């Protein structure tokens, strides 16, 4: 078992796809990096924190992007975003069987905030273009940085979300919420609270991810294979169903609960028996809860 969370981006690419099949566009040797970091005294990276290219998954052609959380938390800047958009537009042209996003990102790279914000919105539109053309977009979330901010929105704009129990998917990071509204609102150092609020188990129980897997590269590969032909239709009916689900969830959860009871109250209302046990269960145990 090899931890997906502990692999850097290129190792994930090497181990997830068929051996030797990943072919990178604009690899580090081409030195395509951010023009904005030097003035902040921040070192740049020759891939701007993302590798994009084509690969094979069990022989089938796919396009892929892997964000490198080790560089600026996987933040999306001008160049990083443009590489994602270029890969997605190329998918529209060349029609691979699917596009996979190996998300590892805190969202917009604040060091080039304005350019990053626009870039993430361009990624969103490009993802939806690819889906509208009938090519599924799959996102894998299981890194130490998780998938936050604009990338958390992008993830939910895809067809299929795979997470591990150590993965996190959300909008604002706990640190940002704590900095804005105080430690009483969200204690960013309370790891159990952070995972109950944003972690893979919670996202699985609430249906925000489609598959929950162990923190294991082989498990992610199997999940990606299972997801290859999964499409979430973009129709008015599908949007109405999503709207009903989200409205119902909002009405289920009373306001004013504290951090110790909030997630457990929501899980109970979703029909989970003995919700207080969830944090102690292993992945198989949590998976069984939703199937039941």
């Amino acid at each position: 078992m090899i931890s997906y969370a502990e692999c850097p981006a290129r190792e994930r690419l090497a181990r997830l796809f068929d051996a030797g099949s990943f072919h990178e566009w604009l690899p580090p040797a081409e030195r395509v990096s951010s023009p904005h970091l030097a003035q902040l005294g921040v070192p740049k990276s020759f891939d701007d924190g993302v590798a994009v290219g084509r690969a094979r998954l069990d022989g089938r052609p796919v396009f892929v992007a892997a964000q490198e959380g080790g560089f600026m938390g996987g933040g999306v800047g001008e160049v990083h975003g443009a590489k994602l958009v270029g890969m997605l537009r190329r998918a529209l042209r060349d029609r691979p069987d699917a596009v996979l996003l190996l998300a590892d990102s805190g969202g917009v790279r604040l060091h080039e905030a304005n350019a990053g914000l626009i870039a993430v919105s361009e990624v969103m539109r490009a993802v939806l273009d690819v889906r509208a053309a009938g090519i599924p977009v799959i996102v894998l979330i299981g890194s130490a940085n998780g998938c936050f901010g604009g990338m958390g929105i992008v993830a939910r704009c895809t067809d299929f979300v795979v997470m591990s129990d150590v993965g996190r998917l959300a909008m604002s990071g706990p640190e940002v919420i704590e900095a804005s509204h105080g430690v009483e609102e969200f204690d960013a150092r309370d790891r159990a609270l952070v995972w109950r609020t944003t972690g893979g188990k919670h996202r699985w129980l609430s249906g925000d991810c489609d598959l929950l897997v162990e923190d294991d590269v082989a498990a992610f590969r199997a999940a990606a294979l299972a997801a290859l032909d999964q499409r979430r239709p973009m129709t008015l009916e599908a949007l109405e169903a999503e709207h009903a689900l989200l409205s119902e969830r909002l009405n289920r959860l009373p306001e004013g609960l504290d951090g110790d009871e909030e997630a457990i109250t929501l899980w109970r209302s979703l029909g989970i028996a003995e919700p207080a046990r969830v944090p102690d269960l292993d992945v198989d145990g949590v998976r069984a809860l939703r199937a039941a």
Partner: protein
Amino acid sequence: MDWNTLATRLFGEGHGIAAEGDFLQGTVSFDGTPLTVVGTTNHAPIGVKVALAQARVVLDTMAQHPGRPILLLIDTQGQQLRRRDELLGINRAMAHLGMCIDQARRRGHRVIGLVYDQALSGGFITSGLIADACYALPEAEIRVMRIPAMARVTKLAPELLEALSQSNPVFAPGVANYVAMGGVRALWEGDLAAALREALAHTPTEDRRALDGAERGGRRLAAPVAQRVLDAA
């Protein structure tokens, strides 16, 4: 600009837009044609509830009035920064709002965004930034995050960030920078109704923002880097 002043300048007295708390909604008549207006005011934080309220209006417009143009009026302090909203999957609600707007575009609705006061991050990315194009009033402000929170996340000194926000276009909150980067198509000045008329008639439906950013010199690498990926061996 106050939303009601804006609405009156665009659509005249008795424009038909109403505020319910921070939420704006209405059907207006513009040049004799009905138009859906949806948005927020009072620098609204966009939580799950407000995102869903906006999505509802877009869904109803698609179902009941195929092809009717939609104007998004944007004034937000960004996404709601609350633990409860995170637990409820605010990112999923935001994505839903963005996908409703995107779907409206694909079904032939013109969708125009207008930042009339302020726009921040999550509240902007699933409204104006996913419209056919976004416009702004000259006095509006667009930014990603307030400086104290930014300093905490980036571990850069607040003084350095404050200085950059005065001078650096990729950092500074002014709308002119967003125009230069292509994120805002143009500023609306003078006759606002004429500006809306022009936008409804001539806004492109494809995403031109990277090309605009390159032509205007505010975001020089986005378009050529994407093109290099397309051309790579």
